[in-house]
C-alpha cells in the first residue's frame, strides 16, 4: 500500500467548488510533483492532506496516510499527526517563522509537542537538525537575522525534526534565488533518500518538476488533468492542457531582427553608495556599495537583458538609469544628456524612457480609471494631446496591446494580472519612448499568460523599433527575448555579451554557476 493515497477528493468552500475528484498517490521514498497554474487547486489539495482547510470547507473523498483517513480523523488526532507523521513547508520563508522566538526554540517545539522529553534533549536534537539542513548559524539566532534561504532551511528543519513519513512542500523555492533554489532542492532530495520519506512538492515551475520529481500530477481548475511518471509524461503527453502548459513554459518567442542604430543610453563607470546603520556613534557613516564600475551601452532598437539574483543591485541600477536617484561617481546619459538633474527632472530626457514593473497589482492607483492611468506619462510632454487627440492616443495604445478602447473607462480592479501588464505596457508606450525598462515584468504571471505577454512584446518590436532593458532572474525568459545580456552580481557586471554566446559559452564562474543551477525543461517534440 502506498504511503499517501488521495482518492476522489472533492472540496467545496462556501458556494464554490474548489476540487473535483482529485487522485494523488505518493509512495515511500518517492517524489511526486503537483503542478498547474494559479487557481488550479494545488495548494488546497496540500492543505486538505494536512487537515488545515478553512473552517467553512466541505471535503469529501478519502485521504489515506498510512491507512488512516485524514478526512475522518478528529482534530486532536490530526494535531498528533502534524509535525509527526506528516510535515509541511510553505512558500514564503520570510513570514513563516515566529519573529520573537529563536530558531532553536522553534525547531525544538516540534519535538516537545509530540514527545515527552526534556528541553535539553529537544534542543540538542534541534541543533543537530539545523546542522543537517545545512544551516551554519547558531540556534540562538532570531529569524530576522537570517536570509530567505536560511529561513526556509529552518522551516524544513521544523517539518522533518521527527522524521515524518510524508513531507509536503508548497512552492518551497518560488520566493528564492536560482542558486538558493538549487541547493534547497538538493537538500530535499537528500532528505527523501536518507529518511525514506515521501515528498509531495507543489510547484508551478515545470523545470523544477523535471529536475526533481519521479511522478507528476497536472491540475487545472481543480481537476487532475493528467498524471504519470515524469519522464514518460514529458515524452508522451496526451492532454491538450499539458501540451499548452509545456509549450508555454518553454516558449520560444519569435523576435524580429534588431534594427540597431545610434547609441542611446550610456552608463559609464557608475558607482552608488547607500548609508547603512551606524555601529559607532562617532566617526564617518558606514556605506554600502550597491553598484561598482557599471559600464554598458544600449543602442537604439537594441534589446538587452540583465540577469542577477536578489540583492545584486538590479533595482538600484534601474532607479539610477531612470534618473530617480543620483550616483556617487560615473555618468548615465541618454542621447548625451544626463538623466539625473536634481530636484527638477529634465523632462526632455525623461520622456525618452519608461518602465514596466513586476507586480501588476501594485502598478496602478486603484482610484483612477484606465484612461487616466495610461496617460500619466503625458506629464513629461511639453504639449500633451487634449480632447479628441488624447482619446485617439488612448484608443490606439489600448489596441496596440491587445485590449479595446472601451476598456479606457474601467477601473483597474476589473482586469486580470495579464491584462494589467498589458495596460502597463500601454502606459509605457503611449509617449513612444526610445527605451523601455522591463523590470521583472513577466515574473509574477502564470506561464501561459507570460508567453502571451512575451509574444506581445515581440509584436510591438515588429511594429516599431523598440530598445529595452529586460531585467529578470529567469534565465530562460531572458534568453528568448534579448540580443545581448549582462550578468550582475554584488553590484558589478561580471559578464556581458551576445545572449546566445553567453548562454552557451559562459566565461565567468558566476555565470556558469547560475546557468548550472537553473533547472532545465527537457526538449521534447510537442
Amino acid at each position, binding site marked *: 500500500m502506498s504511503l499517501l493515497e488521495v482518492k476522489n477528493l472533492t472540496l467545496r468552500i462556501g458556494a464554490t467548488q474548489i476540487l473535483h475528484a482529485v487522485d494523488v498517490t505518493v509512495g515511500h521514498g518517492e517524489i511526486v510533483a503537483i503542478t498547474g497554474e494559479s487557481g488550479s487547486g494545488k495548494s488546497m489539495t496540500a492543505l486538505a492532506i*494536512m487537515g*488545515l482547510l478553512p473552517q467553512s470547507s466541505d471535503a469529501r473523498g478519502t485521504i489515506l496516510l498510512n491507512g488512516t483517513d485524514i478526512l475522518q480523523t478528529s*482534530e*486532536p488526532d490530526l*494535531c*498528533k*499527526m*502534524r*509535525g*509527526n507523521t506528516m*510535515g*509541511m513547508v*510553505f512558500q*514564503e520563508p520570510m*513570514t*513563516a*517563522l*515566529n*519573529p*520573537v*522566538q529563536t530558531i532553536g526554540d522553534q525547531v525544538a*517545539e*516540534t519535538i516537545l*509537542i*509530540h514527545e515527552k522529553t526534556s528541553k535539553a534533549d529537544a534542543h540538542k536534537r534541534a541543533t543537530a537538525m539545523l546542522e543537517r539542513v545545512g544551516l551554519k548559524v547558531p540556534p540562538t539566532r*532570531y529569524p*530576522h*537575522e537570517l536570509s530567505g534561504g536560511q529561513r526556509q532551511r529552518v*522551516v524544513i528543519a*521544523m*517539518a522533518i525534526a521527527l522524521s515524518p513519513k510524508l513531507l509536503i512542500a508548497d512552492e518551497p523555492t518560488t520566493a528564492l534565488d536560482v542558486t538558493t533554489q538549487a541547493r534547497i532542492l538538493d537538500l530535499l532530495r537528500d532528505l527523501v533518500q536518507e529518511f525514506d520519506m515521501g515528498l509531495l512538492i507543489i510547484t508551478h515551475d515545470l523545470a523544477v518538476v523535471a529536475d526533481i520529481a519521479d511522478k507528476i500530477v497536472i491540475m487545472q481548475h481543480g481537476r487532475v488533468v493528467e498524471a504519470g511518471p515524469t519522464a514518460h509524461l514529458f515524452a508522451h503527453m496526451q492532454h491538450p492542457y499539458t501540451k499548452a502548459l509545456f509549450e508555454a513554459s518553454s516558449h520560444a518567442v519569435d523576435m524580429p531582427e534588431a534594427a540597431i542604430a545610434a547609441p542611446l543610453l550610456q552608463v559609464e563607470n557608475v558607482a552608488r553608495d547607500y548609508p547603512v*546603520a551606524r555601529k559607532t556613534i562617532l566617526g564617518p557613516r558606514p556605506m554600502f556599495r550597491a553598484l561598482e564600475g557599471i559600464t554598458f551601452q544600449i543602442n537604439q532598437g537594441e534589446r538587452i537583458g540583465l540577469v542577477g539574483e536578489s540583492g545584486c543591485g538590479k533595482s538600484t541600477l534601474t532607479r539610477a538609469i531612470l534618473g530617480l536617484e543620483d550616483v556617487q561617481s560615473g555618468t548615465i546619459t541618454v542621447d548625451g544628456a544626463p538623466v539625473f538633474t536634481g530636484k527638477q527632472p529634465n523632462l526632455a530626457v525623461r520622456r525618452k524612457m519608461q518602465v514596466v514593473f513586476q507586480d501588476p497589482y501594485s502598478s496602478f492607483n486603484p482610484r483612477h480609471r484606465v484612461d487616466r492611468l495610461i496617460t500619466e506619462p503625458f506629464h513629461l510632454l511639453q504639449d500633451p494631446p487634449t480632447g479628441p487627440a488624447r482619446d485617439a492616443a488612448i484608443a490606439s495604445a489600448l489596441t496596440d496591446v491587445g485590449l479595446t478602447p472601451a476598456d479606457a473607462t474601467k477601473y483597474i480592479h476589473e482586469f486580470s494580472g495579464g491584462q494589467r501588464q498589458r495596460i502597463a505596457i500601454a502606459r509605457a508606450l503611449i509617449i513612444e519612448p526610445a527605451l523601455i525598462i522591463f523590470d521583472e515584468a513577466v515574473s509574477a504571471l502564470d506561464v501561459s499568460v507570460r508567453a502571451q505577454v512575451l509574444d506581445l512584446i515581440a509584436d510591438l518590436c515588429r511594429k516599431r523599433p523598440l530598445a529595452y532593458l529586460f531585467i529578470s532572474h529567469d534565465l530562460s525568459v531572458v534568453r528568448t527575448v534579448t540580443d545581448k545580456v549582462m550578468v550582475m552580481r554584488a553590484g558589478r557586471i561580471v559578464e556581458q555579451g551576445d545572449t546566445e554566446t553567453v548562454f552557451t559559452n559562459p566565461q565567468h564562474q558566476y555565470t556558469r554557476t547560475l546557468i548550472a543551477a537553473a533547472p532545465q525543461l527537457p526538449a521534447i517534440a510537442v
Partner: protein
Amino acid sequence: MIRYVLGRLTSLIISLIVASIVIFAVIEVIPGDPAAFMLGVNARPDTIAALRAEMGLDQPVAVRYFEWVTGLLQGDFGRSWTYKTPVADLIADRVWVSLPLAIYALLLSTIIAFPAGIYAASRRGGAGDITIMGATQLGVAIPNFWFAMILVLIFAINLRWFSAGGFPGWDNPLLAIKSLTLPAIALALPQAAILARVMRSSLLDMLGEDFIRTARAKGLTRRQALWKHAVRNALIPVLTIIGLQFSFLLAGGIIIEQVFFLPGLGRLIFQSISARDLIVVESVVMLLVFVVILVNFLVDLAYAVVDPRLRTKS
C-alpha cells in the same frame, strides 16, 4: 540593546527639555507680566513689585528658565503665591493619591481587558465575541466621571459597600486602597473597553499571519498556537496603547477626584487656576508631563524585552 536604551534615554531627555520650554513659555512668557496677571486688575503697584522681585521677573527669560529648571532638579518647585508654602510640599502628599490611583486603574484596566480581548479573538464571530464587542462598544462611550457618579449612587449610597468619597491617608494601606477602588474602577472600565478592542484586533491580525500556519503544521492545536505564538506577538502593538492609556488615566484621575473628593493633584490644580497661582500650575503640569514621558520611556524599554528585532538592529 545598549544602543537602543541610550537612544531612548536621549529621546527622553530631549522631550523633557522641550516640554519644559513649552510649559515655561506658556506660563511665564505669554501672559506678558505673570505677576500682574496673577494679582489681577486691582492690585497695588507695590504688591506687584514685591511679587515680581520674588519671582525674579526682572531677569532675562533665559536666566529665569535655567533657574527654574535647576530648581526643579533639586526638588525646589518654587513657592505658591496663594498658600505661601513651597509647592513641593503641596504636591508631595497629593501626588501619593493621584499617582497610585492611575497605576491602580491601569492594573485593573489591563486585568480586565487582556482576557476579554483574547477570549473575543479566539471565539471570533461567536456569542462570546459579539457580547464582548457590544460591551466594549458601550464602555468606550461612557464618560468616566459620569460612570463614577453612577457607581457612587449604586455602591456607596444605596449598597453602602464603599464610602462616597474621601481618602483616609496611607497609614492604613488596605483602607487607602479601598477608598481608591471605586475611583479606579470608574477610570479603568472605559479604558479597558478600548484596550480590549485593541487586544482583540491585534490578536486577530496575528492569527492570520503565516507563522501561525507554520505552528499548526507542526502539530500545535489552535489553542496552543494562540497562546504560544500569537499572544506574545500581539502584545507588541498593544504596549503602545498602554503607554498612551497611562497618560489618559492620569488626566482622567484628576477629573475623577472631583467626584470622590480625593485630595489629589486635581483639586490643587483647579484651585490654583481659579486663584491664578501660575507657579503651582506650572510645576504640577511639568510633573504630570514628566510622569507621562517617563512611562512612555519604560514602555519603549518593555518593547525591547518583548521584541528581539529591536535588540539586535544591524
